[in-house]
């Protein structure tokens, strides 16, 4: 069977691959959306923090023989802590200002982080082996699915929906949303907003690092692995609606799929398809697919 000259088996496998990539988008854009939602900061350093996650996992394995599973917890914690420090020392000073400044600061941070890693580890990057327990794959009939990729989807979606639940369905979420709008008043109501903000940034950053550890066995761990991804992830967040948690998750997965399809039918355009969609979406639905106008 063929659809538009493409065998359905191939199409199926492409969709599956799209879903896998979508999971990465989802988890990265979720982190961005949370940070934007609460801090009103467009975290340009997100890509660098993702890269840090991957590098920490690699360093842990090669220098200290710390395995993947420990790294999966430890790297986000470490990077999250790094995020907490950044927030306490720098970002904190920008909340009252225009979005622009947060974007610029984190842009600068990204340059610094990437520059340092590049100086330390070179540009070609390092290779991280798929952990023993997840190596190999399953023959699905239409394709060979590496077990690790399946694990990525499961892990990413679990974390995404867990986070979504925490934010949308608990009081914490209401604090977060209210804190975005008027931190002073929320404080006056008795909520420790600075702490809340610090932890949120830390959490968003930790999500990036988590994605980084997930990505380490899939992609070559290199200092620029995040900077190439980040622009696309921005687009995902914007299409989903800035600050919308569910929006970022769903859009992340959806765009992964769309991109997968583009790779089948018009591969050259797969790098811009996200941007084309973004322009169309914003013209039709100004606040993004899930954003509130």
């Amino acid at each position: 069977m063929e659809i538009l000259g493409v065998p359905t088996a191939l199409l199926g496998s492409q969709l599956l691959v799209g879903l896998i990539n979508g999971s990465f988008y989802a988890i990265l854009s979720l982190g961005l959306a949370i940070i934007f939602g609460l801090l009103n900061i467009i975290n340009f350093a997100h890509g660098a923090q993702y890269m840090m996650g991957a590098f920490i996992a690699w360093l842990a394995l090669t220098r200290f023989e710390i395995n993947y599973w420990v790294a999966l917890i430890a790297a986000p914690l470490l990077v999250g802590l790094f995020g907490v420090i950044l927030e306490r020392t720098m970002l904190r000073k920008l909340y009252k200002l225009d979005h622009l400044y947060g974007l610029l600061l984190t842009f600068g941070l990204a340059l610094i982080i990437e520059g340092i890693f590049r100086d330390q580890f070179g540009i070609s990057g390092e290779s991280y082996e798929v952990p023993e327990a997840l190596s190999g794959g399953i023959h699905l009939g239409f394709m060979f699915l590496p077990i690790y990729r399946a694990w990525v989807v499961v892990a990413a979606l679990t974390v995404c929906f867990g986070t979504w639940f925490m934010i949308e369905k608990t009081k914490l979420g209401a604090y977060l949303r209210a804190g975005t709008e008027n931190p002073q008043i929320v404080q006056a109501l008795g909520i420790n907003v600075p702490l809340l903000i610090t932890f949120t940034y830390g959490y968003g950053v930790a999500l990036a690092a988590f994605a980084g550890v997930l990505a380490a066995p899939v992609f070559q761990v290199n200092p620029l692995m995040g900077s190439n991804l980040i622009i696309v992830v921005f687009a995902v967040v914007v299409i989903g609606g800035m600050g919308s948690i569910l929006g970022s998750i769903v859009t992340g997965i959806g765009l992964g799929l769309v991109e997968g399809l583009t790779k089948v039918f018009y591969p050259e355009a797969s790098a811009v398809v996200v941007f084309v969609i973004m322009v169309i979406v914003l013209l039709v639905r100004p606040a993004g697919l899930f954003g509130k106008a």
Partner: protein
Amino acid sequence: MTSAFDPKPEMLRISDLHAFYGESHILHGIDLHVGRGECITLLGRNGSGRSTTLKSILGLVGRRSGSIMVNGKDVIAEPTHRMARHGIGYVPEERAIFASLSTEENLMLPPQVASGGMSLDEIYRMFPNLLERRSSPGTKLSGGEQQMLAMARVLRTGAKLLLLDEITEGLAPVIVKKLGEVIVELKKRGFTIILVEQNFRFAAPLADRHYVLEHGEIIATISKEELPGRLDWLHQTLGV
């Protein structure tokens, strides 16, 4: 004016409070006190520093100095979010309704800091408008509805010292009247209230004492009893 024989235990005492926004010095040494269950007002022209006084109590100004005693404890060094734990509730003049939250979420947002907060039912009975708009997002409310919500939000928390900034602003007379009743009721229940009001007709009968501010200083303190005699003076200074 401060009588040593004041029977009511002191809820709040402010001494020599200075406040700054950036470079500008707004409050120049405010001294005032409120006993438990009292209601006082801060009067003054636009820009005289009434709102700033309330904000300074909560630590929402750039910088402040002096002392702020709540229940006998100096809290000036404490961060804003701790003030609610001391039982202070605040209705800001700009209302500050959260746009991304629905009316009910706005109501449910503040944590309960003490017992004695009003239940949702009580609140909806007091402000039927809110019941009707309970699931509508905060910013879609009309000006007056937002004002009611801001007031209601604080009543839920059980805060015992209420700082109310221009709460009658933009409200229809029927609601203003109701608010007056609410405040009388609150006083009865032992709440302590600081009112900042333009609507003197509203504030006058409620207050035990009036502080008149000008350029960030208290220029007069008028007790309830003295009020009739000072009306002319007030009229001259404030145009009341």
